[in-house]
């Protein structure tokens, strides 16, 4: 697989904890799991054996998975990945069932419980399918081979005469269930990362579309998200906050709150919060406290954001990168017949996961257990351990399947807050952020300023491409187009608002600008926008999605008079996307009538799950394309509520037609993010039929 650039905003300190696969660990794991067969697949083992690479590098890439087969023949996969709506509890189980030749309902997954699963750096970067699924498959395949070995030894038969089928080893007239083969034993095996796994032609469970494994719990309301977790004696917490998104606690008058029955007020440095017997009482107690906060003066605002980003360019912390330079940009530009220049502005946008940040914390004998919705269970464990000066093994983080995240749940502050309150109360405490806290104290997708310049020769080919991105990030910053001279650079800046990961990261901003500019140049040269791209594209996978989207939407002719088409294409995280939009003019601007998405991510694991992810990413992309932008000033978020910050709703969604290209010959790439990146430029280019489009997202006529 090609290496994938991890967004700088996603990098955190290297985890302190390393899972060493030693004899002691096998004993520990088998003690937890009981008798049966355990197989561990770890990239660390493979790397150590292959090249003896340094431990540090191995830790950051570590991908480990365990498979256990118990005496009843039940199969359990253990992974540090989290289920946040992307459906990996189902798709990862498919990989295991496939390799072990057991029905899907015999497989279950233990996910994201730091006491029970191997280390994982987090669920982001669309890596679960390309990296974790093969690792679980590898462990499952190892288990299958060990079960065959076990049967061959027991029956004194050549293993080549045996095979597995429906949870049994069979052959030469003998048959035994997996459960019977492991009964009363503790068997263990370790596999390196390079152990072979089945490829697409051998799949039978992967490549199909079973329903979500625990779907019933979601339609009945029975599934317990973190806000639904209850512990014996549990109390409810609330944190005191400044009015805006920043401030230092100056004074606190808590006399009224302390007089309320069962209320505890906690103050520790800049942290203040309350604990009360009910959620209603916690709300009341927090409201009864008068706190004064010192707020810095002259904070940047939406109005001067982009000037601020350009003025505060910094390479602090080494986040910046050297420019990508290809060929002789100055030389090529000097020979240009025409040049096209533009400057685009990308606002901050919010994740707005429907499940707010939430944690339930419980201390027992100096050890803290925290249930919380996060994409980084081990990262949050490290944060809690540091905050309370505990060794990591005294912190357990458990992530219930979570009410979405979209890159917004990488940090552990709410888990730490709940743990701090629980420590003071001496009882378990649940803390659920309000929607207002979500907007002011979570983080946003970075805003950015992007300058772009294309130099074109007399034969209408781009000969030089210059691209500078301030602050929004380097994901997908390079151009996939065949251009002989390029200079491309990401410039980190001082962000006035807290910013971090988001579905697709900066790939959305970089694709918006690149594709809008390709469109502008094509228009300027009077070349068809699809032909213009094809003239600059060698990558067959990119050409295939572009042609598929164009064909499906009927390019270049819209379906009726008065409508216009736009198109964009791109690649990120190993998958390829092209999006086409049909729009029409209205008295208020424009409306999107139809979207076509052609997507290719290698071999498809779960076609219905993939379709669902593609549609969802496109709908989320509509928000950033059509109306989402965080407004701020005087230290406050101006539109920090669901009422004011509009996210896509039923009425906003046009018919979305998804064309999936199944490349059975290619490894599966992740798919949850990339389909978001071309929504805005497809719409933006279509709207250009009606007039000039503003250079700031969301898309609107200038």
């Amino acid at each position: 697989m090609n290496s994938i650039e991890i967004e700088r905003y996603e990098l955190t300190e290297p985890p302190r904890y390393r899972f060493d696969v030693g004899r002691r660990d096998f004993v520990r794991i088998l003690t937890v799991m009981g008798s049966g067969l355990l197989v561990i697949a770890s990239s660390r083992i493979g790397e150590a054996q292959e090249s003896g690479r340094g431990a540090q590098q191995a830790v950051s890439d570590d991908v480990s998975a365990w498979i256990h087969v118990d005496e009843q023949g039940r199969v359990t996969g253990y992974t540090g990945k989290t289920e946040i709506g992307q459906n990996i509890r189902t798709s990862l189980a498919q990989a295991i069932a496939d390799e072990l030749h057991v029905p899907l309902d015999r497989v279950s997954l233990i996910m994201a419980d730091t006491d029970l699963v191997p280390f994982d750096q987090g669920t982001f970067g669309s890596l679960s399918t390309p990296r974790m699924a093969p690792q679980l498959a590898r462990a499952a395949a190892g288990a299958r081979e060990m079960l065959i070995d076990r049967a061959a030894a027991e029956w004194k038969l050549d293993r080549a005469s045996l095979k597995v089928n429906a949870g049994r080893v069979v052959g030469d007239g003998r048959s035994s269930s997996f459960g019977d083969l492991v009964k009363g034993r503790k068997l263990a095996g370790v596999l390196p990362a390079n152990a072979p796994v089945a490829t697409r032609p051998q799949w039978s469970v992967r490549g199909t579309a079973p329903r979500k494994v625990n779907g019933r719990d979601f339609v009945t309301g029975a599934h317990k998200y973190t806000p639904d977790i209850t512990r014996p004696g549990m109390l409810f917490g609330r944190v005191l906050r400044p009015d805006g998104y920043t401030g230092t606690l100056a004074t606190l008058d808590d006399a009224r709150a302390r007089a309320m029955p069962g209320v505890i007020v906690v103050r520790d440095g800049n942290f203040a919060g309350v604990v009360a017997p009910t959620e209603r009482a916690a709300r009341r107690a927090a409201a009864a406290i008068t706190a004064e906060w010192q707020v810095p003066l002259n904070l940047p605002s939406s109005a001067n954001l982009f000037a601020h980003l350009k003025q505060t360019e910094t390479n602090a912390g080494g986040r910046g990168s050297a420019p990508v330079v290809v060929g002789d940009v100055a030389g090529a530009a000097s020979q240009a017949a025409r040049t096209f220049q533009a400057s685009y502005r990308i606002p901050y946008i919010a994740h707005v996961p429907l499940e707010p940040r939430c944690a339930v914390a419980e201390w027992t004998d100096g050890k803290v257990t925290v249930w919380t919705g996060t994409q980084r269970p081990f990262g949050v464990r490290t944060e809690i351990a540091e905050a309370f000066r505990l060794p990591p093994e005294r912190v357990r983080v458990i992530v219930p399947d979570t009410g979405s995240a979209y890159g917004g749940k990488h940090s552990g502050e709410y888990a730490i807050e709940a743990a701090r309150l629980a420590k003071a109360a001496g009882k378990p405490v649940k803390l659920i952020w309000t929607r207002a806290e979500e907007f002011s104290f979570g983080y946003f997708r970075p805003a950015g300023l992007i300058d772009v310049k294309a130099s074109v020769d007399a034969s209408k080919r781009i000969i030089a491409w210059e691209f500078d991105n301030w602050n929004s990030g380097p994901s997908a910053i390079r151009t996939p187009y065949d251009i002989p001279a390029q200079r491309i650079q990401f410039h980190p800046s001082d962000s006035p608002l807290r910013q971090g990961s988001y579905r697709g990261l900066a790939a959305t901003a970089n694709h918006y600008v690149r594709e809008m500019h390709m469109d502008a140049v094509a228009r300027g040269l009077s070349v068809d926008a699809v032909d213009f791209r094809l003239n600059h594209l060698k990558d067959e996978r990119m050409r295939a999605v572009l042609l598929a989207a164009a064909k499906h939407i009927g390019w270049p002719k819209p379906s009726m008079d008065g409508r216009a088409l736009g198109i964009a294409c791109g690649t990120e995280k190993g998958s390829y996307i092209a999006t086409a939009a049909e729009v029409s003019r209205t008295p208020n601007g424009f409306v999107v009538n139809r979207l076509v998405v052609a997507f290719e991510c290698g071999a498809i694991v779960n076609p219905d799950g993939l379709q669902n992810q593609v549609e969802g990413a496109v709908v989320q992309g509509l928000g950033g394309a059509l109306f989402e932008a965080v407004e701020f000033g005087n230290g406050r978020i101006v539109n920090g509520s669901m009422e004011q910050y509009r996210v896509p709703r039923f009425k906003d969604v046009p018919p979305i037609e998804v064309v999936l290209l199944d490349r059975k010959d290619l490894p599966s790439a992740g798919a949850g993010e990339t389909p978001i990146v071309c929504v805005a430029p497809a719409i933006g280019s279509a709207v250009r039929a009606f007039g000039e489009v503003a250079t700031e997202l969301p898309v609107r006529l200038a």
Partner: protein
Amino acid sequence: MATFALRVNGRTHQVDGEPGDSLLSVLRYELGLTGSKFGCGEGYCGACSVLLDNQIARACVTRLAAAAGKNIDTIDALASGDRLHPVQQAFLEAEAFQCGYCTPGMVMATVSLLRTNPNPTDNDIAKVMDRNVCRCGTYPRIVRAVKLAAERVRRSGSAEVAR
């Protein structure tokens, strides 16, 4: 403080509180009915949708005083034992969810919609359900699930959706 009689899923509970206390807070954290979700607390996302005397309501912004004396139906009691309500069954079959956090509210909104409009068009659905947010963007599937449920209910007679 006053005492309010809340009739939830056919059972009456006496709850002490202020008239302005949130119904959702009582349902979720005191009566243990966690099927209705807290999403925004503003009445703008619909994750907490319940039925108040058969009318759809946002429990998060419904005051205790307004809920007292009314029949409150929540997702927790929508299925009859192991048998799913046809709307739940349709959502399950259409896989009309990703993270599922909006699903209870969507299901309740659909139950309410089908009671007044047994044969909704795509536009009817978008119009009536526009106050329910699915941040994962599964709207096209939800529309399919609503239509599938409507078809089933029409075929089996309208009795079932009225529970």
